[in-house]
């Protein structure tokens, strides 16, 4: 809200061109900003912090699992470790990661707008997120909960003796941040597009974020009511989940998974949007099948809501319902598969530059295919009965969420780093980190498919000794993965001070965000953009390669 500069000696155009990073240096100008770009940076710092906490929990888990005995942590301690790992990663890292950092920053730029529709609401979203995070931090310090991130009743309502209510409150509050973000994105995409930016010219990143915003708005409130009922049950014993009063523990699971299954699509849809951008840019080629990819995003958002019962195949759900959910869960794979075909076809005969972002994107595609195929396996009722609650499931969702979404997040961070910071990072280090991540990831999680299929249960830290070798491979991989995640922290931060200054369009990419300076001025564009070109209209004859040091 403050003026870009109080400097009356400079020309207005010059003031307008001032980078958003220079429009005020005070803490106040950051903490009271309504600039979507600054809010994106605030989110980036916050989620990195929560990621670190969740990663420490993961390290504890992997260290514990090196030996078959429970020698590092007690039973309760181990339960609390995987619980806080899941809770922090899902709600305080993955869900906000791409939408609230890259989405917040890029959506207005990509559609040619000067900000989101409701800038103050955007700032409020961040503050709500921080309040929730503070509660979560308190939970960590208070020892956490042992319930798993899934909070199943009656453990949570009757028997668990951790900080259940505080945890549930933290997640409840974070949900409002999400809902408001989704609201903001939907209205922005409908009402703030630049002249000429028709729906058919929107970057696929926007389509993905529109789809994810639908899920934000319609699924998250169900989480809110679920947690509210959970807290009421725990504190007041209202009994909706208690069979002795006539309630049903499975009601909790229906309510919980009605949100939490769409939630996993919250975590993957933005990543898919990123991949569409990285693949077209890295191959300097138009996307293959624009409308297929665009509509697939919407289809994923819709079908996501129809499959939640596949988490409850062995919970006591009726066989008929399970069969219906099984069939629908197979259907949900179709739009995702369509996207994979289209990305691959885009790469085919493209002018490919193997820079870090594209490496991350290609990692995403490969790892997502493995995760997706094993997801199909899990969708089959009979197979799931065998591998439910084993490491097979753990491996499946980590392939999607870590091999997929986290890889895409890192790819996005690298790709748009020059735009966000005005600096170029060291490309050699970038490529090394990407490859290390892909290798480390597979080493960590592929053994877990084998473990699960052979019967290693999830959430156990004591296991038969014949599983130890695979666990050791997995932990070694986790170490590698840790290095792969730490490397970018160092060279990206280093580039802030010492990196070469970035031009407006270092990648030679299409898209409105590349038409403005790196970093952008406070109000994004010095003149109102008017869109006349189709999206991704690359000319293969004259690709402009990235200017690099």
């Amino acid at each position, binding site marked *: 809200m403050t003026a870009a500069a109080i400097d009356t000696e400079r020309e207005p155009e010059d003031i307008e061109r001032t980078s958003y990073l220079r429009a005020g240096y005070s803490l106040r100008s950051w903490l009271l900003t309504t600039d979507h770009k600054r809010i994106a940076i605030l989110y980036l710092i916050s989620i990195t912090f929560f990621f670190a906490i969740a990663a420490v929990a993961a390290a504890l888990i992997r260290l514990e699992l090196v030996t078959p005995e429970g020698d590092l942590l007690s039973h309760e301690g181990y339960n609390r470790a995987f619980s806080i790992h899941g809770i922090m990663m899902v709600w305080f890292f993955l869900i906000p990661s791409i939408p609230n950092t890259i989405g917040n920053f890029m959506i207005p730029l990509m559609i040619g707008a000067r900000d989101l529709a409701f800038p103050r609401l955007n700032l409020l979203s961040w503050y709500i997120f921080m309040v929730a995070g503070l509660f979560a931090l308190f939970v960590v310090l208070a020892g956490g909960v042992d319930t798993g991130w899934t909070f199943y009743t009656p453990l949570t309502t009757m028997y668990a003796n951790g900080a259940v209510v505080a945890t549930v409150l933290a997640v409840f509050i974070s949900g409002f941040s999400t809902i408001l973000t989704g609201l903001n994105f939907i209205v922005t995409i*409908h009402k703030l597009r630049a002249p000429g930016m028709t729906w058919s010219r929107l970057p696929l990143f926007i389509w993905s974020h529109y789809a994810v915003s639908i899920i934000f708005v*319609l699924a998250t409130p*169900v989480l809110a009511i679920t947690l509210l009922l959970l807290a009421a049950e725990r504190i007041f014993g209202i009994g909706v989940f208690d069979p002795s009063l006539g309630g049903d523990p*499975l009601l909790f699971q229906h309510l919980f998974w009605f949100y939490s299954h769409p939630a996993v699509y919250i975590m993957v849809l933005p990543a898919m949007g990123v991949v569409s951008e990285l693949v077209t840019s890295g191959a300097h080629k138009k996307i293959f099948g624009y409308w297929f990819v665009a509509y697939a995003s919407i289809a994923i958002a819709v079908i996501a809501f129809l499959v939640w*019962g596949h988490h409850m195949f062995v919970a006591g759900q*009726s066989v008929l319902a399970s069969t*219906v959910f099984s069939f629908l869960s197979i259907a949900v794979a179709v739009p995702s598969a369509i996207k994979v075909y289209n990305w691959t076809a885009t790469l085919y005969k493209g002018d490919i530059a193997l820079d870090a972002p594209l490496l991350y994107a290609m990692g995403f595609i490969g790892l997502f295919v493995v995760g997706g195929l094993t997801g199909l396996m899990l969708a089959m009722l009979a197979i799931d009965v065998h591998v439910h609650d084993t490491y097979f499931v753990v491996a499946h969702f980590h392939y999607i969420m870590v091999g997929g979404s986290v890889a895409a997040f890192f790819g996005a961070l690298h790709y748009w780093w020059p735009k966000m910071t005005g600096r170029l990072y060291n490309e050699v280090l970038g490529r090394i980190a990407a490859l290390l991540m892909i290798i480390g990831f597979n080493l960590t999680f592929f053994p877990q498919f084998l473990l699960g299929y052979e019967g290693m249960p999830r959430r156990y830290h004591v296991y038969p000794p014949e599983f130890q070798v695979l666990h050791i491979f997995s932990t070694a991989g986790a170490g590698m993965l840790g290095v792969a995640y730490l490397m970018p922290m160092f060279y990206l931060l280093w580039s802030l001070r010492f990196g070469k200054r970035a031009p407006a369009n270092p990648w030679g990419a299409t898209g409105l965000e590349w038409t403005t300076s790196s970093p952008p001025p406070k109000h994004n564009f010095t003149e109102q953009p008017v869109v006349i070109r189709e999206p991704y209209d690359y000319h293969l004859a004259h690709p402009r390669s990235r200017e690099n040091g």
Partner: protein
Amino acid sequence: MSAGVKRLLVVGLGLQVLLAATVAASFLPLGPFKPWVGYGIAVAKAVLVLWFFMEMRKEGGLVRLATVAAFAWLAIMFALTASDYLSRSWIAAYADV
């Protein structure tokens, strides 16, 4: 009194009439149709509120679609959950859940 005001007053009266109808219906021996009648009248009331009070009649297709979508999502939640509860007794193993 303008046409707009008149319209709103008529709708308001209609809502009260529907309320009276639903109360009366609750005293009738309708058997298994009772909830259908009760919720059916509730839907009618909601449609009136949406169409006239919330001005859905003036809105374009996109807004109407968004409104329908919200209720459609509710319907999804109920339909698929119902598929569980209604069929639990079909297979003996789950009959006493």
